[in-house]
């Protein structure tokens, strides 16, 4: 088994069943703290929780995206992460959002490829009135940026991958990817 997820039942190693970092972030900050405090690389990670060894090896590296003062409401900022050919955009929604950062918890970032069949969801398709991205040109899917990229109307069998952000001092950093990026069997990590 080469699972990357914190699967606790090896009969089922799909990302949906286990408490993933994505789910922890989604469920709230305290859970994140708990996970962050797990002694990674220790005996627990190696043996008691199958998959955590890989988790340690496949960590994402943070990348600085923008300074807070350069982020204007409703104005997307394109960036790549975690590797150069994965395109995303960051946007300040003006309303509280799932995994939103910044003083108003409203700065989020998402991948630009539709997880239905790979159509483009470029920043230009962001709808500031609704804080939705789309519709995808291929089959009209739309995604709710306030609710972790949930499908509003459409066909993707998973949410639009969200780029996890953190604010440190005056800058916003990308620190991970929540959800599998279209076209990948395993999310890429920066070298």
């Amino acid at each position, binding site marked *: 088994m080469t699972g*990357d997820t914190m699967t606790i039942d090896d009969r089922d190693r799909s990302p949906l069943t286990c408490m993933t970092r994505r789910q922890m972030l989604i469920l709230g900050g305290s859970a994140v703290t708990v996970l962050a405090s797990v002694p990674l690389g220790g005996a627990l990670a190696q043996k008691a929780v199958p998959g955590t060894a890989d988790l340690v090896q496949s960590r994402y590296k943070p990348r600085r995206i923008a300074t807070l003062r350069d982020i204007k409401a409703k104005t997307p900022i394109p960036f790549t992460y975690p590797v150069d050919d994965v395109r995303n955009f960051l946007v300040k929604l003006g309303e509280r959002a799932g995994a939103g950062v910044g003083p108003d918890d409203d700065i989020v970032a998402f991948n630009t490829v539709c997880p239905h*069949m790979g159509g483009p969801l470029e920043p230009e398709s962001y709808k500031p009135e609704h804080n939705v991205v789309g519709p995808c040109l291929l089959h009209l899917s739309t995604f709710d940026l306030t609710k972790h990229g*949930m499908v509003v*109307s459409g066909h*993707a069998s998973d949410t639009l991958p969200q780029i996890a952000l953190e604010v440190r001092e005056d800058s916003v950093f990308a620190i991970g990817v929540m959800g599998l990026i279209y*076209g990948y069997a395993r999310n890429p990590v920066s070298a």
Partner: protein
Amino acid sequence: MVEQIQPFEVISVPLPPKDAEVLTTACAYCTVACGYKVYRWPVGKEGGPKADQNALGIDFPTGGAMLPWISPSQHNIARHNGKPHHVVVLPDFDAKVVNPGGNHSIRGGTLAQKIYNPARPTRDRLVYPMVRVAGVLQPVSWDLATEVMAEVSKHVLAKYGEHAWGMKTYSYEYFENTYAISKLVNTSIGTPVYAPHDKPQNAEDAAGLDDAGVNSFAASYEDWGACDVAFLSGVDPYETKTILFTEWMMKGDQPDKKMIFVTPHRTMGVAYGQQNGGLWLPIIPGADTVLHLALARIIIENNWQDQEFIDNWVANQWDVESGYGRGTRNTRWQWRTTWGTFQSDWNDYRKFIMAEESAKLENAVRITGLPADLIRKAAELIAKPKPNGSRPKTSFMLEKGNYWSNNYMNSASLGALGLICGAGNRPGRVISRGGGHQRGGMGAGFSKGWLSPEKYPGRRKKALNVDRWVMDGNVRFMWVIGCTWFAAMLASQELQSRVHELVRGNPHQPRNVNKTHLVDTYKKRVDAGGMVLVDSDIYPVDPLNTQIADIVLPAAGWGEVDFTRCNSERRLRLYSAFNDPPGEAKPDWWAIAKFAQKMGFAGYDWKSSNDVFEESSRFSRGGVLSYHVLVTEAKREGRKAHELLRTLGTTGIQTPIRLVDGKLVGTKRLHDPSNKRGDIEGATVDQRWLYAFGTPSGRAVLLKTPWKFSGWIDFYEAVKPRKEKGEIWITNGRVNETWQSGFDDLRKPHLSKRWPWPWIVIHPDDAKPKGIESGDLVQGYNDEVFVQTGAPIGVLEKDLTFTELRKNGHIKVTSGQFVAVAIVSDEIRPGVAIASFNYPGAPANSLCHAVPDPVTGNYRYKLGRGVLSKVGASVYRTLLTEMSLKPRPII
């Protein structure tokens, strides 16, 4: 400083190894039935990211759109032969039909999450037969459950007759199961007390179309791709037939087609249609007939009708009257089409349209609530010849917004409108239902509908209304298979309360599972006027089997048994078994056989699903779903019919299947004259509706639908929202991301997060005065829900009109309510709210009236009304993980 180490997991999906087994199937859900492939391999190995290391034969990352890809929702762990296996369920990227290139909906895209997995939400599958003891279900053996059922059934049949033994089942859940059910109901028990899941009676869905001679599923998907104009009545195929829309209507041979949507709800497909030169006609619920009449009048006034087609293909009076012999003309379609009220031909229809008050534009504007120029524009689009004299190729689709609001008249008037525009039997010019469920119904010989006591005045035959028959206390033993019953029918809470009273409200309740005790208790109950209720399903269904049913049987379904069925272009495929059913769960045909054997009935010794399929084929022979030729050819080749069908993979073959030059040939389109062939070969059955319309003359019948028809107009007036009470229309419908009653969806993490609760879309004009905002819990309440009681037989002409029924004490006034989460959006017509249909826990149908269309026996499901009130804020106003409250048509 940012820490250098971030403990984010890297999400991945396991790739099928090169040697993974690949099986074909089709989607379990909507009528389109996209082709899927199932990759299965034992837990313990995985494929690699290189094309030569995985069964998809592609490098990962794939680096492009529209290529095979596995999303996390498309993988699960299943048991196969008792051992854990990886299962990946992917749309068939090699498909050339239905979903070319692997297009798929969110429903089909999450099929893998339907698989039984004790570590997942599907852990609540029913796994043992159970009997309710002191209110709680207790596991028992199949033998005990079916022996008790048989003993009680024998008692009921001997003492009360076949009219006291009823069944309510899906109409679509595979030919093998429906054939077995039909054999039991029609042949062995011989009861008329049967209704499919979506109707209170066993009769036509869109009877006006059938009576016109147009089969409801005459079209092929490519017709919806090839038309210049699509007139879509009471349907947005984007929402409920997704791939028909995104693959065929948005593309197809005519990608620039104009779409006209007639629906009060501006959903995503409607918005796309408007953006591409089409129209949105936000009609007042129930008024479609008037729109159709007004459109016909504009067309006739301007001489835009397709006269050549009418001259060739529309029945004249002699055609309508011919072919009946000296029969009584009491069969449903016979009495309706040769009865003065509806019967017509071109000249008579034209006169009717010009004389009909409601067809005048100014009247139509008032009744439909649509602006005159919108109606005029729609008439131009569907019928106005181009400057060069050529006609637009227009196709007409209808679905539940049409025939579930004014059953007979809406479908009949749409049929007539389509016919005068030259549609019905040509490429890109079709009249068809869009479809709801797939088509997996197969009858075993004649149904016992002739035992129905119901009659329209004039001794005209009608099917029996099972809901009313039960509520009136006529049924002592009832078996429900694979449907919710109450929430899908009308005045849901009243029906549910009455069934609860007959079953649980009776003093005779079992206290142990001793067979003699159970049989004695149930016999005492039925003798005391109560009812014994059996329910077969794959899940707990609230309240049907969780709170009420006496005996609950666990079913095995999609992916657990080899099954067959057709989609809405009549395409037959094998739905392969690829994992073990949980526990003691068995296919319904097996449960039927087990019960029938306990009853002592012969002919139920099937060993496999294929045995049932092969036996059923001769009953399919003369029908539009005929697969008899496939079975006879398989037998000739010495192979099983299921195995021959398996070789056709996700392509399958369109029924009726014919033998032409020794080869199996499918039928793309019904009624199409190009289907006419010379000699009939082998087991092929010649049917005129293959190359002409389905009437005695082969010509289609125009039907008149006077708006003030007494079987409609007083009911409509009685159920309109009452302004003095502050009521609005509260209709119901479905959206893309949930399928039907949410049975699998609520067990799929991705979908249950999207729609954890039922929704109601309310216009800001209706929400604001009540202080309702998006995310609020809102109650819909109707304090006057009509339920028809008794009076199955009409004797005098007006006996079954609403006014007369009410005067004679056959209309009971009840009430109904439900609570849903508000989405406040101008996507809905003001004065109309739309709530999710048949959603667990929130029966929007409770507000709708269980008074059937007297002409057809079908309900007017969409005509709910009530007062909206705010209950409070739902958690979804603040919870950022569940239920998006954004409007649908963002484009």
